[in-house]
Every structure is written in structure tokens, then in C-alpha cells.
């Protein structure tokens, strides 16, 4: 993570930019508007998780934090704010929320964007030994995407959080009162949901049956696309859960790049992430 001096400088620079913008009476959206405050462990800004479900998750994550010191935040949002890639936005949100103890950097941010159908698990450096990219990938692919495809946002978050806890705090035992059997129904406190409990086992049977198909499709897709999965070094993992197979990149205003002839290059720079570069062809 950034050190605090750098962050301070960046803040100062940002605020001076804002001041200039205000003086010029330019209606620039405040950058902070893109980063909501974290109000609890679960921050459901898209309104996809019921209050009782949220309470279950919040209690679970509070318990975990008290007992193990590990802090897990969850963001459920409709869309990635425009101008950001998934990776960039979640990384910045992590920097804003700063899950985990500062010196230990033992926080995790699980962020999902329902309308973009994208999600990412961002892991603090202090936990990377326990929660590797490969593990994140498995959690997303096996535990979360199947639920998300069915629109079960709570089940997806619950399963994802469970697996993250198992990885980062293996000694932590979830109290029975907080155990939710995803096979039987929605959250335990929501027992009176008419009709739904009957549907859910069926749904799970369907999901279970479709697992081999799902992975077959992924492998086939990977072979067809000639891709080799996650390359080294990343701290998070994201997947389209739409299965559309199109680019995961949502586009940004960043830079510009070349055409096909050697004379039509142009450089980029100063885009969404503040980095810069140039591109070309040969």
C-alpha cells in the first residue's frame, strides 16, 4: 500500500486540483463521489441484500475481526464508476477503505458490481501468503459465480466470505448461530419466505449438475482463446460472470493508441490512472 506521506501528498495535490476546479466554476464531479464511505463490513449500495442478511454477514465479520484481527469488507455496487477499470477502481476503493490493520495490512476487500457482472477480491499484502491468487480464483469461480449467475447475491457473498475466512483465519470457528445453510434456504433469520425454500434445493441440484458443464465450458473457452489463466503477480482476480467471453475491460478515456501503419501512432498519458505510455505496431 501507499505510505502515508505519499497519500498525504496525493490528497494535497487532489485538493488543490479541486480548488482550482471550483475557482474556475467548472462543474467537475468530485473524485470522492466515486468512493462511498464504508459504513459497515457489508456495504450494499445496490440494495441487493436484505437487511437481515446484511446483519448476519456484519455480525460474522465483526466476530472474525474481534477474534482474529482480520478485517474483511464487502462492497456491492451496481456499476463501476465511469472512467475506471475494475482493477483500478477496486484497488482505489481498497486504498480508501483501508481494511485491516495498517501495519499488518491484513485486510480483504470483496467487491462486486451487479450490472457490470464483474467482481474482484483485493487482498492486503499481509495476507497474500494465505490467500493466493489461485485461491481467490477458485473462490470466485467455484463459490461465487454459480450463485451470481442465479442472482443469489447474498449466497454469493456469504460463500465467498466463508472461503476467504477459511483461508486467512483457519483457526476461526464460525459460531453456530451465524451458520447459514445455503443448501436449505436463504439466511436463518429469514425463515418465513414463502415458496422460496422449495425452489432453492432444486436450484442447487441444477447448479451441482451444471458444474461439470460449467468447467468444461471454461476449459473449452480457455483452449479456444488460447489463454493460460492468471499470470504471475496479481493480488486479485476477477471474472465475467456473464460468460459472454467478451473483453472484461469496460473501457476508459485513457490515452489513445496506434492504427496499423507505422506512421499513425499516438502516445497516451494522463488518463484514469494517472500513468502514461505509448503504443505502436510493427
Amino acid at each position, binding site marked *: *500500500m*501507499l*505510505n502515508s506521506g*505519499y497519500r498525504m501528498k496525493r490528497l494535497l495535490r487532489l485538493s488543490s486540483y479541486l480548488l482550482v476546479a471550483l475557482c474556475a466554476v467548472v462543474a467537475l464531479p468530485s473524485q470522492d463521489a466515486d468512493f462511498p464511505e464504508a459504513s459497515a463490513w457489508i456495504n450494499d449500495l445496490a440494495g441487493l441484500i436484505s437487511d437481515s442478511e446484511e446483519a448476519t454477514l456484519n455480525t460474522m465479520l465483526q466476530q472474525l475481526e474481534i477474534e482474529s484481527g482480520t478485517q474483511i469488507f464487502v462492497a456491492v455496487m451496481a456499476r463501476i464508476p465511469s472512467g475506471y*477499470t475494475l*482493477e*483500478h477502481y477496486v*484497488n482505489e476503493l481498497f486504498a480508501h477503505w483501508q481494511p485491516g490493520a495498517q501495519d499488518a495490512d491484513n485486510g480483504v476487500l470483496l467487491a462486486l458490481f451487479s450490472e457490470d457482472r464483474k467482481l474482484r477480491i483485493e487482498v492486503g*499484502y499481509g495476507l497474500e501468503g494465505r490467500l493466493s491468487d489461485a485461491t481467490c480464483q477458485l473462490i470466485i469461480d467455484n463459490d461465487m459465480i454459480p450463485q451470481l449467475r442465479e442472482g443469489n447475491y447474498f449466497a454469493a457473498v456469504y460463500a465467498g466470505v466463508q472461503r476467504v475466512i477459511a483461508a486467512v483465519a483457519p483457526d476461526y470457528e464460525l459460531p453456530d448461530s451465524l451458520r447459514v445453510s445455503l443448501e436449505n434456504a436463504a439466511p436463518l433469520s429469514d425463515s418465513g419466505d414463502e415458496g422460496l425454500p422449495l425452489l432453492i434445493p432444486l436450484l442447487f441440484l441444477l447448479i451441482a449438475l451444471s458444474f461439470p458443464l460449467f468447467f468444461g465450458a471454461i476449459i473449452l473457452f480457455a*483452449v*479456444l482463446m*488460447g*489463454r*493460460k*489463466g492468471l*499470470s*504471475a*503477480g*496479481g*493480488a*486479485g482476480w476477477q471474472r465475467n460472470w456473464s460468460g459472454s467471453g*467478451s*473483453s*472484461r*475491460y469496460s*473501457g*476508459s478515456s*485513457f*490515452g*489513445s*493508441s*496506434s492504427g496499423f501503419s*507505422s506512421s499513425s*501512432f499516438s*502516445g*497516451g*498519458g*494522463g*488518463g484514469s*490512472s*494517472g*500513468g*502514461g*505510455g*505509448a*503504443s*505502436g*505496431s*510493427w
Partner: protein
Amino acid sequence: MNLLKPSSVSALLTRANKARILAAIRKAEARTSGEIRLHVESRLKGESPLVRAEQRFFELNMQATQLRNGALIYLALDDRRFAIFGDKGIHAKVGDDFWQAERDAMQVRFHQDDIIGGIEHGIAAVGAKLRAYFPVDDDNPNQLSDEISHAE
């Protein structure tokens, strides 16, 4: 897709070529806190190489340097497109002109089919800037691994 035919990526990243690239990266990263990586894949998916490079940069978590001075050299081999992307710390120092000049210098070598030579040149050029703007004296913790990442 013929699975028996080696991909352009694996054809390029032979053991010897990898060793050349890693040596160039280590040399470039000596005496600087900056970090350089290479990502090679076969094709873009409709996006521009620079956009793709930026996306890969964040996927590889390369913004994790304290001074935001990581740089990624990106190649889409079968598309014959490439990009250099630098994080905001290094970009603030070198500006667009530097990226474009090094892009052109790499391109000259790529045109001569000297792909590894072009990559080596880019790594060395970025390394020189990193040493100039982000020098360190002795113990330089490698903040990111030097691995070459690739997707086929």
C-alpha cells in the same frame, strides 16, 4: 486452433530468450526502486494495446510500488502491436515524449524482426530513467517479482 503447433508466445519465450529478458530486467532494476515487467500474449481483443497494457498493469498489481514507479512493456505478438505503460510516479517525471521516443526505438528493432532486442532496448531505456529519478543506494528490495507474464 492447432494445439500441436507452438504458439507465437512460447516460440518467443524460449529458455534462452527468457534468460536474456530477465537479465535485462535485473540490470535495469539495479540501483532503482522502480520495477519493470514484461507481458506477452498473442492477441488483443479489440482494445488498443495501451489500454490493454494499462489493464494488465493493474491486473498484475503493478501499482503496488511505494512511489508508483512501475512500468510494463506489453506485446500482442500475433497482432504485432505493443505498448509501454508507466505508472503515475514515473509518468510524472518522464512525460509522453519519453514513451513515444522509446516506442519508436523499440519499433525499429521489431521491424527488423529482433523482438527480443526491441524488448531489451525498452527495458534498458525505462531502467535508465528509473535510476535517474528513483535511485537507491544499496539494498534494493525487489518490490515486485521480475517474472515475465504471458498468456498464449
